[in-house]
């Protein structure tokens, strides 16, 4: 039976020998093939993108505080008569906010950052199948995001993140840079997708069947299917757009007989499935958070697993609902509307299963659980308002209003950003071996939740009353809603910054924790914290990822271990997770 030293080595706090201290120097990070380090580089990158795009959001919300048409934020910075003081700047702000948030933050946030760190460990593997491709994916992300920034420098971008033709062909802003950036980011996403598909298929620990995988992996797998099948279509669409702008090939340009609606079809054939690239991994995170922090087996494992796959597949069949007002035939519109409703079924299956899991669970209201609960609430609203938009008659009224803006922010921010933050708070102790200040973490979560609702709930009202999206000025009747929304945006911003501060503080000053502080049962917790370079110092012992009875508290290590590894002098007991 394991001695105290061996137990400490396997499950304790890894003081010296871990992936963070494995080798030193900038190059050992920049050229690393280790999935955990690549994940952390991704984490830094997407967080930077979040902050940059978030600043754009705050600037345009500042502008919208008053309904006049001067760009308020930059008026303060550059003065009344500055060239930046115009609605053009507003157009560029919301475009780059959208483009950077979607392509550089949300899409890679959970899969490429958290997924990279967690996926191989959950499988009991040493790395992803193609570590070099993984690193290449990160550098493609860097170049792609760089091109978006170049677009900002070279005349900005004012097409909206959707690059609709014919305006994207006519505008004199940096469309080519931005679309090329998005093209490269697409390949980054494809590389991650291929890697995850292959890793899950071929590198599961011996004996780990598909239905013994944690649900986060099902979510990442479904996401990877979409990444691989949808992103190439975006790639060719953006290439054709670039060719259209530079050469005038006439496929999308009505001046040459082209069809601008064809561009919309191509674009949404990717970009609607991409919505599920954004939300599916977040749902996977929530499945882990709910079960671990309620210490209860997930209710309806196979339903949650298959609902991920169902969402991934249905996601390919609903793109036309972005184009109800673009002049599609009535029959096509009806079909798209009906299929769109059907997406609500697997989504609701997940929500009900999470709620059923919480029922009679021993819920610890710590930071990750607060984020999970907040996700369920916000995603619930985001999902239900989606039904308003899938309904043809209401969509005609709500199309291109703030209602749509509020709807997808409830899903993308209320859903994905919330899950991303919750996932960071959940896995942070594993990857840095330190516990954060849970009270401040919860304060941050509350600010995010409250600020978010304050920002976007008024937008539902505005949208229903006819406030169109993307306008730089508005009628006086909307002013009070815009002002609430702007205040909320700053609260949300403060909440996010506070969360980052809490996490960063923990990296250096947090209380040291051992391998499994939450009493979780999936394989990544069967290692020291931070994990060693090869992830596991022993072959992880395969068991049910949601069998929390197999996990017991070890006083000597102050952490949870498998029953087999428990100190033989100690009586097995289950101690609730505390701080």
């Amino acid at each position, binding site marked *: 039976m394991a001695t105290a030293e061996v137990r400490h080595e396997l499950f304790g706090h890894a003081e010296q020998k871990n992936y963070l201290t494995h080798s030193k120097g900038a190059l050992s990070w920049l050229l690393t093939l280790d999935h955990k380090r690549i994940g952390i580089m991704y984490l830094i990158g997407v967080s930077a993108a979040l902050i940059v795009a978030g600043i754009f959001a705050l600037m345009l919300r500042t502008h919208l505080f008053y309904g006049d048409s001067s760009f308020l934020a930059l008026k303060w910075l550059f003065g009344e008569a500055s060239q930046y003081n115009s609605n053009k700047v507003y157009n560029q702000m919301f475009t780059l906010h959208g483009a950077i948030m979607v392509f550089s933050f949300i899409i890679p946030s959970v899969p490429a950052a958290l997924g990279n760190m967690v996926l191989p460990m959950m499988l009991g593997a040493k790395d992803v199948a193609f570590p070099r491709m993984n690193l290449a994916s990160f550098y493609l992300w860097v170049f792609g995001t760089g091109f978006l920034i170049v677009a900002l420098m070279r005349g900005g971008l004012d097409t909206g993140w959707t690059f609709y033709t014919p305006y994207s062909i006519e505008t004199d802003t940096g469309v080519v840079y931005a679309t090329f950036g998005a093209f490269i980011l697409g390949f980054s996403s494809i590389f991650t997708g291929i890697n995850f*598909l292959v890793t899950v298929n071929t590198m599961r620990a011996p004996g780990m069947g598909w239905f013994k995988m944690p649900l986060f992996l099902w979510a990442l797998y479904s996401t990877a299917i979409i990444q691989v099948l949808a992103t190439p279509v975006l790639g060719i669409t953006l290439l054709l757009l670039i060719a259209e702008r530079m050469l005038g090939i*006439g496929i999308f340009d009505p001046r040459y007989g082209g069809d601008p609606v064809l561009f919309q079809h191509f674009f949404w054939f990717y970009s609607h499935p991409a919505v599920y690239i954004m939300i599916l991994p977040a749902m996977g995170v929530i499945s882990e958070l709910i079960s671990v922090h309620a210490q209860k087996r997930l209710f309806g494992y196979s339903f949650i697993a298959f609902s991920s796959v169902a969402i991934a597949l249905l996601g390919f069949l609903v793109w036309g609902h972005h184009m109800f007002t673009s002049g599609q035939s009535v029959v096509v519109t009806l079909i798209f509307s009906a299929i769109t409703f059907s997406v609500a079924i697997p989504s609701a299956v997940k929500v009900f299963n999470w709620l059923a899991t919480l029922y009679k669970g021993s819920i610890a209201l710590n930071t990750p659980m607060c984020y999970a609960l907040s996700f369920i609430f916000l995603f619930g609203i985001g999902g239900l308002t989606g039904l308003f938009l899938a309904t043809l008659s209401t969509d005609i009224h709500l199309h291109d209003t703030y209602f749509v803006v509020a709807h997808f922010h409830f899903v993308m921010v209320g859903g994905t950003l919330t899950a991303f933050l919750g996932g960071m708070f959940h896995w942070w102790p594993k990857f840095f071996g330190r516990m954060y200040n849970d009270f401040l973490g919860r304060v941050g979560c509350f600010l995010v939740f409250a600020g978010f609702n304050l920002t976007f709930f008024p937008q539902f009202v505005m949208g229903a009353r006819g406030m169109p999206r993307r306008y730089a000025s508005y009628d006086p009747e909307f002013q009070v809603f815009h002002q609430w929304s702007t205040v909320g945006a700053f609260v949300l911003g403060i909440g996010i910054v506070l969360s980052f501060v809490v996490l960063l503080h923990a990296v250096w000053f947090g209380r040291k924790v051992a391998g499994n502080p939450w009493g979780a049962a999936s394989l990544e917790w069967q290692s020291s914290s931070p994990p060693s370079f090869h992830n596991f110092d*022993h*072959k992880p012992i395969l068991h049910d990822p949601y069998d929390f009875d197999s996990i017991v508290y070890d006083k000597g290590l102050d952490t949870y271990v498998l029953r*087999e590894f428990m100190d033989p002098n100690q009586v097995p007991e289950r101690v609730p997770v505390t701080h």
Partner: protein
Amino acid sequence: MAVADTAHHHDHHHDHGEFIAHHFDNAEQQFDSGKLGIWIFLVTEVLFFSGLFVAYTLWRYHHPEIFQQAHVFLDKVLGGINTVVLLFSSLTMALAVRCSQMSNNRGTAFYTLITMVCAAIFLGVKAIEYSHKWDQGILVRSLWAYTTDHQEAQWTLSKQLGISDWLVALSIIPAILLVAFIALSIIARLVANPILSKFFAGLAITVGGYFLGAVGGHIYMLNYEAQSAANSGHAQVAPLVLHADDKVATDHPTAAAHGVDHHHAGEHHDSHHPDPKSLDRDVGIFFSIYYCMTGLHAVHILGGIGFLSWIFYRSLKGHWRSDYFGPVEYVGLYWHLVDLIWIYLFPMLYLID
């Protein structure tokens, strides 16, 4: 219980084969992962081309007339030659994979080199086709400047040789590469690095394939133009292009004056080229789609030559064994897909009638 055999688990890659990455348990897992990975990648490639196929389908469905008018500009013989070349290269690729499975590195190197040369021949022929069209202003929709007017070559050299400026421009980089690879091969021989010397010699031969294709295609075009000029001069139906002959003969009676012997390459009064006024404005859309499809395909051929060079180099190093030949097989699969896409492009673009 599990601890006893575990503490130094991560040292176990001593018994790994030479080319098995540390994170794989064994050669089989590595091979399976690579094979699944390349198949998924091929799926993404198919989807990457799918947008172009959709655009083609829509345009052809809504505007069949521009496809009727446009396809006479494409030469079935040159397209057919390229099809045969690519099919043959798929055969040699398959033989290369077979050799690597039998641990026959010499055979793998040989067949890989043939495959590379075929790829380069394909590009050479493509360069002839492209330059020929650019000369006559057969461009994408917005740049469409098609004319049957006589266009003199601008550069003295190209004028004397009767070749297009565009062809010269396309051939500059291959020419530089040819010289560079020959030089590098000689240098490698001088510093007694036979593997590198063979490698660069192989690359030089590959680039030679480009010029083989270009010169062959050029000679074909000269003969073809001469022949069709002669045929239309004698008011006979040209053997290859049936459509526009009468029109050319009536619109350009001077063509009759050109015998085979007096033919000048800069003139394009052959039956490939109907009267510009008879064409729909949107014929250029066909060529937008043509250039996007064949251009993207040519980029994949170039990428394929890159991957094949890597296989060729590793074959010269003798890396392949019957239990390690994954990369050859993966590149082979990629190559077959590139071939397969052409098998679709050829009838869709060249064989419309």
